[in-house]
């Protein structure tokens, strides 16, 4: 159990930390957009960077926040049918459908990785006046997919543990 427990702890921690950090990206977007509005209306000189800056931050923001949302199990699903199963059976069902979550995330990592690799080796820049590096955003896609995949795996471990023992993962930690 030890390595599994360590895995869950590290992955859950990473999802939450990444999610909280990217949460502040929106503060940066607020600041950059404010600068843009002010310089356009009061100084009549729109910036060349604010739009793209916001664009890339927002892209990375929602991609990388997928894992924390999965950790809190806030990705909505239709739970009407399963809601009258016992909690243990629901956990088992969650574990069984893991393969579909893993498939989707896996393809994002694999194909997104190829896509990002081409960009990283050239240290690609955007084709714009400002021309910021574009490879970090392209890398965010496979990284987000990987974080989601790991978080789904962590949830799988917790679900299986509950389905088998009837004790939640949190209860296990108290006893250990």
């Amino acid at each position, binding site marked *: 159990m030890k390595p599994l427990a360590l895995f869950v702890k590290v992955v859950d921690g990473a999802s939450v930390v990444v*999610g*909280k950090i*990217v*949460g*502040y990206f*929106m*503060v940066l*977007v*607020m600041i950059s*957009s*404010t600068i*843009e*509005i002010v310089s356009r*209306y009061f100084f009549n000189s729109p910036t060349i960077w604010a*739009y793209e800056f*916001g*664009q*890339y931050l*927002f*892209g*990375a*923001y*929602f*991609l990388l*926040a*997928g894992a*924390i*949302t*999965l950790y*809190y199990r*806030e*990705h*909505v*699903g*239709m*739970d*009407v*049918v*399963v809601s009258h199963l016992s909690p243990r059976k*629901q956990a088992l*069902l*969650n574990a*069984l*459908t893991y393969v*579909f*979550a893993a*498939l*989707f995330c896996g*393809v*994002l990592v*694999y*194909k*997104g990785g190829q*896509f990002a690799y081409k960009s990283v080796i050239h240290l690609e820049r955007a084709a714009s006046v400002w021309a910021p590096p574009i490879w970090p*955003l*392209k890398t*965010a*896609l496979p990284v987000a997919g990987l974080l989601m995949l790991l978080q789904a795996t962590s949830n799988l471990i917790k679900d299986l543990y509950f389905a088998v023992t009837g004790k939640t993962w949190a209860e296990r930690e108290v006893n250990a």
Partner: protein
Amino acid sequence: MDMATITLLMFGVMVLLLCTGLPVAFVIGSVGIIFAYFLWGPGGLSMVIYPTYGLSLTFLLAAVPLFIFMGLILQKSGIADDLFEAMYKWAGGLRGGMAVGTVIVCAIIAAMVGISGAATVAMGLIALPAMLKRNYSKYLATGTIQAGGALGLLIPPSIPFLVYAFVAQQSAGMLFASGVLPGLLLCSLYIVYILVRSALQPELAPALPPEERATLREKMLSLKALVLPFAVIFSVMACVVLGITTITEASVIGALGAMVAATVQRKLTFRMIRESLERTTIVTAMVMWIALAAVCFGSIYTGLGAAKMVKDVFLGLGLGPWGVLICMQLSFFVLGMFLDDTAILFLTVPLYLPIVKQLGFDPLWFGTLFVINMQMAFLTPPYGLNLFYMKGVVPRGITMTDLYWSVWPFVLIQAVGLALVMIFPQIALWLPNAVFR
């Protein structure tokens, strides 16, 4: 395999997976990938990349988290309580008055937030206990709150309009404007229904006893609560409607305005900002990952030639343009029982829109119809999000079955509203045309 068989198979697998409770994003994404693999082999998987990358570059949608953040800050600064307090004083003396007041407060909250859950939860916590204490019928009370909460989708700012603007390449500002009058129309229909119903059956929604009613002075003082929310609403709307800023910039102004309003109320704390940011992140990721999975699925499904098939099916029905339009609305309604608005939008609109245009209908108006329709999706079981939000905050003794019964008169009213906007497109189109052209 022909297209019809593939479609049936795809949606069959999708429904089956949805029933397991697997998150919608994973269902849609994995079904798309499985079919792409079996139909085209490993090369087909590359089709997920370009739509995903395109989505991550859509700055328009950055307005989604910013409007959510604005709504959360306003909500946490206690504006909902003050608004309800004001309505309680003004309308409490009427039969059904508190329910009417709840609808109005919901409409005002709808103009501050772009989603449906905010007003439902806030009013469920504030207005529901007050109404139940005054012996309001639990059906009328909960139904009102859920229907009122759904106005959040229609009255701008509105997340589904933003997403529709992206998918259908329409002006988000004009879409926002097109939701205003239908929103007010629905609001009035609810109020008329409540007043008529409580006049006929006074025991459903009794008036406050005279000694508990507010004096005129108290009523006037309570209006102070309206100043700040209206200031924020008008600054955002002015920026959008007068074309001063882009939608995304307007959402930034709204978010900053909300923080100013909260500061004036002496409610703004770092903890509140931190919690709102985290909540915003999670809600946005939930919406955007469904969008992400759906654009992947959409590009695969369209790549299979779905657009032509859907077109042939609809145009082959021999129903005429209006028949097709009504069928589309019915399909939204049925899908709305099982899926959420973002998923339905990405799955159907790219396929429907070319048909709508070919039949000579206005795509802007089609967007308004879609969003009115989605309000029903939020109320119709088994998968109606407002039912879940409501269930989360009702006192013990109110069951899910009670909630199912509570919503149907309102769903009927929404259907009437939808029909009215279909018959009189000017209800939706007059305002955007007056302002933008």
